């Protein structure tokens, strides 16, 4: 990062010096490179900075972004640091049973008991997202913007049918997270991810993740599952097996019909036949890892896909079991 030089970097003469800004000219192997880092203090300033600096990249926890910059895979013309925008770091209720989460909410904050009581699956995903150092700075918004296939919060947001608020100079718009992730309705130039709206369900919700070690690790597969007793529905999303979280809609509809919703709340009631739960697992796995992926011999990609299918199947079955317990 650039040290605050105190010299000519403080604000640039051409613009209104509203946003605290550092400019630096560095010689990089004989090539002059301009580096600009802006530190807006409010959302309005951030949106404005984004509007006037095309190609600027907003950065919050920087756990993914700076790794790419340091490795030379990414050389952004300018960075807009969001760390000083305190309004984005919290969350609030909104009428109509919605939680509005700031994009700057850290994984560590989402793991705290008050938040975990509200959206337990998101708290579980945040808790397993990495080592404490990463969770202390890595943010919800960063997880969505990076959209890594193994991003732990993404299947939870997909299954909760969360929406994102995108702000730009002069207005905002709401986009379902799944549309954002799939590219159906992507982030446009000059837009900043500011809020995530999560409908509160007051019903069991589960996030499960399979990894290759007990310590923090990337998911080989993850499953988020919620019950919606009001609509007598089950929603499920599978993460890390495809570039975006997958929703096995047919399996969801099918399993909702297998659940004895009326027995809910009764002591010791079996809500679902174990065979149906196992079949649900298979159904989900089959939907997310299509038969075509299984080609390629016993040691080739087919074997990998078969193992992944089995893992997803176990995760989905267990997630349903925990949700119905």
């Amino acid at each position, binding site marked *: 990062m650039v040290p605050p030089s105190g010299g000519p970097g403080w604000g640039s003469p051409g613009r209104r010096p509203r946003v605290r800004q550092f400019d630096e000219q560095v010689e990089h192997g004989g090539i002059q490179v301009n580096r600009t880092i802006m530190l807006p203090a409010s959302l309005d300033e951030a949106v404005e900075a984004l509007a006037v600096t095309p190609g600027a990249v907003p950065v919050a926890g920087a756990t993914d972004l700076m790794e790419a910059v340091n490795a030379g895979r990414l050389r952004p013309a300018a960075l807009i640091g969001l760390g000083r925008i305190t309004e984005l770091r919290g969350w609030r209720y909104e009428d109509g049973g919605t939680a509005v989460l700031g994009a700057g909410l850290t994984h560590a904050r989402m793991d705290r008991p008050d938040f975990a009581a509200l959206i337990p699956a998101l708290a579980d995903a945040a808790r*397993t997202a990495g080592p404490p150092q990463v969770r202390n700075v890595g943010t919800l918004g960063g997880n969505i913007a990076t959209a890594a296939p193994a991003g732990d919060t993404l299947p939870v947001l997909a299954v909760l049918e969360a929406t994102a608020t995108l702000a730009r100079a002069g207005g905002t718009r709401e986009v379902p997270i799944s549309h954002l992730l799939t590219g159906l309705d992507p982030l446009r130039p000059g837009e900043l991810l500011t809020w995530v709206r999560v409908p509160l369900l007051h019903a069991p919700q589960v996030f499960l993740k399979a990894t290759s070690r*007990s310590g923090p690790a990337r998911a080989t597969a993850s499953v988020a599952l919620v019950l919606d007793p009001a609509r007598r529905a089950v929603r499920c999303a599978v993460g890390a097996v495809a570039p975006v979280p997958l929703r096995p809609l047919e399996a969801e509809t099918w399993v909702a019909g297998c659940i004895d919703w009326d027995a809910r709340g009764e002591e010791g009631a079996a809500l679902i036949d174990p065979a149906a739960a196992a079949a649900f697992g298979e159904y989900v796995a089959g939907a997310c890892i299509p038969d075509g992926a299984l080609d390629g011999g016993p040691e080739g990609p087919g074997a990998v896909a078969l193992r992944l299918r089995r893992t997803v199947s176990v995760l989905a079955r267990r997630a349903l079991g925990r949700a119905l317990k």
Partner: protein
Amino acid sequence: MSSPTDISSPTDLPSAAPEESQDAEPFGLGSTALRTDALPKALGIYPYAADLWAEGLLWGAVLRSPHPHARIVAIDTTPALALPGVHAVVTAADLPPGPEGTPDGAPSGPIVADRPILACGVVRHHGEPVAAVAADHPDTARLAAASILVEYELLEAVTDPEQSFNVPPLHPEGNLFRHLPLRTGDPEAVGEIVVEGLYQVGRQDPAPLGSEAGLAVPRPDGGVELHLSSTDPHGDRDRTAACLGLEPDRVRLVVTGVPGATSDREDLSFQVTLALLALRTGRPVKMTLTREESFHAHTSRHPALLRYRHHADAEGKLVKVEAQILLDGGAYADVSSEALAAAAAFSVGPYVCANVFVDAWAVRTNNPPAGRMRGEGALQTCFAYESQLDQLAVQLGIDPLEIRRRNAMATGDPMPTGQAVTCPAPVAALLDALTDSPLPALPLDDPEADWLLPGGPGGAGDPAAVRRGIGYAVGMVHMLGAEGEDEVSTATVRVSGNHATVICAAVDVGQGFATLARQIVQSVLGVSEVYIAPVDSDQSVAGPSARGRHTWVSGGAVERAALMVRHQLLQPIAANFGMSVELLSIADGKITSYDGVLGMPVAEALEGKELWATAQCRPHPTEPLDESGQGDAFVSIAFCAMRAVVDVDIELGAVRVVDVTVAQDVGRALNPRQIEDRIEAAVAQGVGLALLEDLRTDGGRILNASLTGYRLPTALDTPDVRIAALLEERDVVATFGAKAVSAVPAVVAPAAVAAAVRAATGLPVGRLPILPEDAIVG
């Protein structure tokens, strides 16, 4: 208070700590003295090589081969030289020419000089250094290195060690590093029960916490001074000088803080390139490798393929062992032939078997070079022979501990090499210690609250799918160099005023030698303030920090030097008191006669003088293994028995090692706390190899050269380590009767974990690391 008989016996030193000073700092041999570097490391003030700085220094960077096997058609360094800020670019052509007068990359190596410093004509592994740059900024140096144009003609990469026998030589030295046949007994012997197995061990990387770093400073006399985290300062100095065509006295190697090493650290090419850049530019050059480069730059553990057939009688006694062992040495020889000797000699393990027929090969491939890592060779075979013994136990329907007891080696028994085990071999006692040790409780009452399930906290673990398994393993590893290697170390001890100083070129790489040296001097001279001088190559030779040799050879040298100083100190006083030296003792900085009547402080006895003594320690010699693998090749052997308890989620294949209980043959516990530390560290490394660590390659290219991709065990993956027993049966020829402790737990832990996973799942676990797919039932 010590008695005169204590003093006369050098291997049985008086514990000089007076009983009344309970609150004093631990002192002398046998105490739990704190590591000398513990506090600076905890406070972050310990100086590592990466912290070095010199006025006007330049930064070095290396260009590495992106291909595992290719011919270098042309190298164009002009784009790099054209960049402002670049001061020098070096390739193989800048190294002294070979015997024929043409550049050959100045090949070097610990045993066979086959590895060029910078690739010359051919690259033989992914990441092989091709050229290096010195520039005024580290980024400039890296950019310049990347801008060098190298035209490669791709060659087929030989990555399967079994193919290595059938392909044209990958190197003028050939593809076979060593073939070691070991034959003893009757080839026709047949047992009533025969079990066979094929075992595979992956590529473990030492992954030291600190990546490679160093500083080279040119000297006015045309030589160079290297500041490095070297583990073998004199060997590195000599090889560096040879590669640069300098006299050894023109190269000085100063050892900086070592940020983690389990044996070797910096690859020779790193330091020679650094020195070459400094000599070329006439300015200090510093180089720090990135994490990714670090994985390419140092050697890893030998991947192995082992085929075993065990014959046993109806009682479970071993009748015959047949084995084929293939070690993948990678592109260059390094210490492969040494690792192979250990693999073949310990191919049966700590068991007695009269008929042994083993063929062991170490071969060249285009994979990353393998080298020295705790228990090289011995670890791979331990996994195989212990798996075989478990199979025999299943066939015979007896307890895995029982089959081991029936075959256990004892002192005096012959090894398959024909060498009798003259050191203590308390294998049966180690097994008994494990039997008596309680098992960790099953979390039956409130599983979800207290039980860390496989997969970790917040994972997908389901208690209903978790099976617990218990596995046992025993293993052995030799100490000191083998097969005729000259083992020697020299140390100097100086006393002045109320403190002593130890000057010895044995590098403390984390094994705790500095702490031990301090304890030795405290015990012999009774002074509590003991300083350990920084190590450089101007001191006398102490040899590499590997194979647990410093406790023996350098510890022995320090003890002898300290005893000589003691004699110099006491002789005039003894004469003055009219008694022999043996009747005086030193404690708490005071000299006291046997009856406590006469006494004087050490400082007064010294009368402002300084006393010095230098001594050497050279254990008894060994001989190379002959053409049938016979010979007294090893100085001494350490044994360890281990019980691993694992929980396996049999649906997801997640494995968690719950507990590892260790019974170890230590000879004598010189510092119990440090021994426990070393055992815990070695178990962590062994568990890592068993479940996680594998430097994966595809067609010779390393796939996971990062700490994200290369999975090291975290605190959650590391089990509780309990010490069931530290057996103190003294090895009479060893210094203090002590045995090396660091390597043998790492050798045994993977086998114990594999046995436990086998017990939990009923699956034939035949490869390490054990991946989730290897532990899924059904």
